[in-house]
């Protein structure tokens, strides 16, 4: 009985991974053949990029502030409060900026993609689109994936910048340290590999968020309850995958660009 359940679960998991691989591969390939829906790409870029800017900006700012607060106490024990800027900028750019932005955007956009497409599936709008001769993969999925990849890149830059600013604000106004020193440490110790690491990650996170959101949305079954289920699955899977892929990319990039 238990073995049977494990067997069925394992098969279902393998089947889901297979379906997801084919789904996301097809969505990527659609970029290289017409028709391309540029207006849909722009609309999605606006929804994802402009729509998520405020939450990314705020979460980045406060994360930078928290980093400065937490590090100041520890660094002061070693008389190294001067390196707060370096600590905040490297942590934000290499790790927290990309991951936090990814998770914030996943919570907002993977859920909205899954619920929007899921609702379209259960109300037969996707079938209607196919019946009207339009490929929903090209019209709905591909623009979302590429809009999410490109917007997450810029949102991560925004999160990094506001994180460093937040750290600076805490350093100057709460820890009463020198602001010039903070920003100069933040800038001078930054290396290209740090920036590369920070800007490669959102490309993968953007792809994960949109492809997982669309995948669960497009395979919704079971009416409105199914839409809710698809939304939860999309957010949970996207968030976990973002952190997992972040770990893999960090490992690869640290091998390629070892610390000096």
């Amino acid at each position, binding site marked *: 009985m238990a073995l049977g359940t494990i067997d069925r679960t394992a098969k279902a998991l393998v089947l889901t991974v297979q379906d997801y691989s084919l789904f996301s591969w097809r969505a990527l390939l659609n970029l290289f053949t017409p*028709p391309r829906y540029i207006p849909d790409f722009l609309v999605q870029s606006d929804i994802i990029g402009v729509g998520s800017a405020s939450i990314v900006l705020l979460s980045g700012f406060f994360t930078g502030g928290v980093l400065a607060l937490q590090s100041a106490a520890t660094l002061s024990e070693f008389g190294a409060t001067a390196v707060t800027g370096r600590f905040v900028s490297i942590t934000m750019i290499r790790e927290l900026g990309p991951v936090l932005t990814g998770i914030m955007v996943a919570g907002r956009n993977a859920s909205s993609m899954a619920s929007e497409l899921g*609702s379209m599936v259960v*109300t*037969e*709008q996707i*079938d209607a689109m196919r*019946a009207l001769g339009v490929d929903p993969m090209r019209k709905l999925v591909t623009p979302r994936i590429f809009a999410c990849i490109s917007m997450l890149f810029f949102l991560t830059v925004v999160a990094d910048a506001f994180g460093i600013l937040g750290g600076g604000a805490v350093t100057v106004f709460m820890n009463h340290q020198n602001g010039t020193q903070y920003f100069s440490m933040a800038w001078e110790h930054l290396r290209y590999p740090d920036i590369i690491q920070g800007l490669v990650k959102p490309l993968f996170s953007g792809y994960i968020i949109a492809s997982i959101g669309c995948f669960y949305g497009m395979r919704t079954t079971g009416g409105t309850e199914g839409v809710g289920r698809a939304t939860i699955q999309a957010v949970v899977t996207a968030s976990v995958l973002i952190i997992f892929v972040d770990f893999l990319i960090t490992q690869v990039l640290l091998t390629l660009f070892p610390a000096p």
Partner: protein
Amino acid sequence: MNESAASSQTPPIEPGQTLSGRDFAPAVEARPVVAFRDVSIAFDGPPVLDNISFSVGPGETRILLGPAGVGKSVLLKLVNGLLRPDRGSVLLFGEEISNMPEEMLFPLRTRTGMVFQEGALFDSLSVRDNVAYQLIQERVPDDLIDRRVHEALRFVELDETFDHYPSSLSGGMRRRVAIARALIHEPELLLYDSPTGGLDPVTSTTIIELIVKERDVYRSPSLLVTHRLQDAFTMCTHRFDAEQNRMVPLPKGETDSNTTFLMLEEGRLIFDGSLHDLVHSQNQFVREFLE
């Protein structure tokens, strides 16, 4: 009469039956628009459709009857390749589509019009953009789109909803907009999935009147799924009078000879024939369904 096994031919006109003044030849002589040959499909269980064979000829209207859950909507979705059969072949406009890649199906689907059970209008688009959906994808100029949308909306008598959104329309109005959307591209085949399902009798009659109007004005072949006998009989015993701009009954004893019936029972096609054949059928299930 042709019962218990499906026929791929339209049955001959029975003695005493007459054409309803239509001036085109019966469909049997031309290549069918749709042909099913021993089609079966299952979804994790017993077959939903089992060895289904039938055809829809040019100018023919076929009404697919059966109680809820016998696979009527599944059959309709097999016609334009929205679903793929497990066995058998489906021919649409003479082309075998059961194994056709999705990309090749899209151009074929643009030659068909489909009206879904609940209308399936795109919530985020206005009525104008819903009706014009195919034309917008084909980058038809805006002024031409507006003109054709107005024409299509006038046909379903909803011209005033041009700028409205689907959420502000009633159930019946949504179906009528869905019919306008299906008609705008002048389809060579129309598929209606329970167009009157869940509507009150008056609104149902309005929808059936539109379908009869489409049948008698444009004469597109069509396949209509319904479980409402009243709708099916109305379609068979009425015609659209262009002068009066309304549906009128045919003279007593006359039926529209190009409107014929199919009936499903538990995934099997148990009836394929005319209204006359249907009402005189000795099949137990058909008798129970009619009663």
